[in-house]
């Protein structure tokens, strides 16, 4: 088995999930200058909603093919996440618009804790196993292995990012979003309903997070009330790496971070002579984050340098 190719495939799978989550951060940051700390919790709610939907399906219509079940779970999880994220924006963030960055950030931390606790009350504090819906036998690609779940994940992420790019570049809503990100007040004067644009931004971000959440649970065969925290944090690092506020940056940053993590965890043992092992995988994202912020705060594709860091 080709280890390098295997790590690259693992990195692409991980990275495409980071990219989906990072898009939610970067879009919200683009229009509101807010780090939506609760975004990781939205991802978790997507996975949990899928768990509940799958349980219901098993009771109401047992024996459906696995692929169909997974499809229904994703389609069902998206509106749940959208509803939660829009509600959070309405209740917690809207009133704090216009205050400095710290007040909404502290609120967002509170929302994140609140949503996690709520999930713990609803779904319990133990990890929930996620059923194996697609065939588990991996496919061999040039000496490396990839599971059907991971292939679906890559395809879904690609499709979601392509449609997002079309929405942002070609539609009226996309133009309104770009205008709002540029300057909310002027966009408002030009007839853009900034409130609606912001709600749409939160909704799109939540939909992408829902897909990422369900696929995350499917890929790692489990869901947990705290599962969204670390992916959320790393996806934020990915958004910063790509240049926060820029959606193509978020996509690129996500994929890059996935590759860095996967290759780093795969080779850190060899590089340090066995002193540090793959259990240090989680620190790569933070090192990337600190490094980018110190050396190039605008990220790879970001343009606005002033006052961002």
């Amino acid at each position: 088995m080709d280890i390098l190719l295997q790590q690259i495939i693992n990195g692409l799978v991980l990275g495409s999930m980071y990219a989906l989550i990072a898009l939610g951060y970067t879009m919200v940051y683009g229009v509101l200058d807010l780090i939506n700390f609760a975004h990781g919790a939205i991802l978790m709610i997507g996975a949990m909603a899928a768990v509940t939907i799958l349980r219901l399906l098993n009771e109401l219509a047992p024996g459906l093919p696995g692929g169909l079940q997974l499809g229904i779970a994703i389609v069902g999880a998206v509106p749940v996440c959208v509803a939660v994220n829009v509600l959070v924006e309405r209740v917690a963030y809207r009133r704090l618009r216009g205050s400095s960055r710290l007040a909404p950030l502290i609120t967002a931390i509170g929302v994140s804790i609140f949503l996690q606790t709520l999930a713990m009350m609803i779904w319990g504090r133990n990890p929930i196993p996620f059923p194996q819906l697609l065939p588990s036998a991996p496919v061999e690609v040039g000496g490396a292995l990839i599971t059907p779940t991971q292939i679906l994940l890559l395809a879904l992420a690609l499709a979601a990012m392509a449609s997002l790019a079309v929405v942002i570049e070609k539609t009226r809503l996309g133009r309104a979003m770009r205008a709002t990100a540029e300057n909310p007040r002027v966009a408002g004067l030009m007839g853009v309903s900034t409130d609606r644009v912001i709600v749409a931004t939160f909704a799109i971000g939540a939909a992408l997070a829902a897909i990422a959440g369900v696929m995350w649970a499917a890929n790692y065969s489990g869901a947990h009330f705290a599962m969204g925290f670390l992916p959320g944090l790393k996806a934020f690092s990915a958004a910063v790496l790509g240049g926060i506020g820029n959606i193509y940056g978020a996509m690129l940053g996500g994929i890059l971070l996935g590759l860095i993590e996967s290759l780093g965890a795969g080779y850190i043992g060899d590089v340090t002579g066995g002193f540090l092992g793959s259990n240090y995988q989680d620190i790569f994202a933070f090192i990337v984050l600190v490094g980018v912020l110190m050396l190039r705060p605008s990220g790879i594709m970001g343009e606005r340098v002033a006052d961002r860091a």
Partner: protein
Amino acid sequence: MNRPVAAGNTRRIRIAGLAALVAVALIFPFVASPFGNSWVRIADMALLYIMLALGLNIVVGFAGLLDLGYIAFYAIGAYTAGMFASPQVASVIESFVNTYPAIGHFLIWLCGPEIAQNGIHLSLWMIVPLAALLAGIFGVVLGAPTLRLRGDYLAIVTLGFGEITRIFMNNLNGPVNITNGPQGIDRIDPIRIFGLSLAGEPGSGSTVHLLGMSMPSVNAYYFLFLAQCALIIFISLRLQNSRLGRAWVALREDETAAGAMGINTRNVKLLAFAMGATFGGVAGSMFGAFQGFVSPESFTLTESIAILAMVVLGGIGHIPGVVLGGALLATLPELLRHVVEPIQLELFGKVWIDAEVLRQLLYGLALILVMLARPAGLWPSSRPENRPQAALNQEAADETRA
């Protein structure tokens, strides 16, 4: 002529209030311990949290730097006590001998057979300065790369540092065992002041004899923590009104202007990090000795956020407010534990919301509701320069001007 009289009155009321508070704080353990030592234990933990909240208040409240990894300094203090007041160093040396014999034998030669056999057992008078020093150094080391970052980015980066600290403590048990990993370090020496062990002498059933009185061990720790809290409050008050304290306020309100007025913003920021970290380190060493055991799971992000919630709830930048916030959020979940769980058992026959869930809910809601309804906290300062709320709305003002 009325004003001085009125001012004198408020002053007198304040002093009376303060005296009453001190009296209650001093009498509390004697009243509470007949109902069970667990109540005094709750108060002990609350005092530790208040120390932490006061330390974080220096960074967040005075200097306006949102630090989400503050618990790392608490962890460093606790692990200092764990390494240097327990048999742990002996097992570290043993682990080196087994993995890298050369380094291991060098360490034995360096430390002598006594330490290699029993570990290092420093006294309180060494542990506290050492914990303060180590935490302070880490504060500067972690603060230095974040100097150029502002506001929200700083928060995320410090959060990352907090997590990295915990990941290292969790994983530094291989290939050479340094921290015992997830199992943590146990058998930490209890605190001993002038030969008096606060855990009670062996065989005394953890009863401490002091000045002809005998009291449970938790009461003895209570008085030690209370004295330390008082000291930290005093230092905080003096800092707030010092030249450095005013420099922090200037930095918080407008970094560019502060720099233009001749404040060395880099040094002043680093000092804020270092001082906040020092308090955290001291509180951590107390925690380690008090529990006799430390493990990485006591130092999760949730704890950092809990301390932030205390500062935010009470009133960012206002010392009495921060003390109030710490006292409320540290004790409320425990008090509610004895109320909410029986009520639920009575009503539904089972416990829906247990105390741990309730604790988290309280922290989350405290952060959200305070920011939405009362951004200056429950007990804001009467002096506007001690209320960062002005800073919270600063950017909006900037934008209007532009």
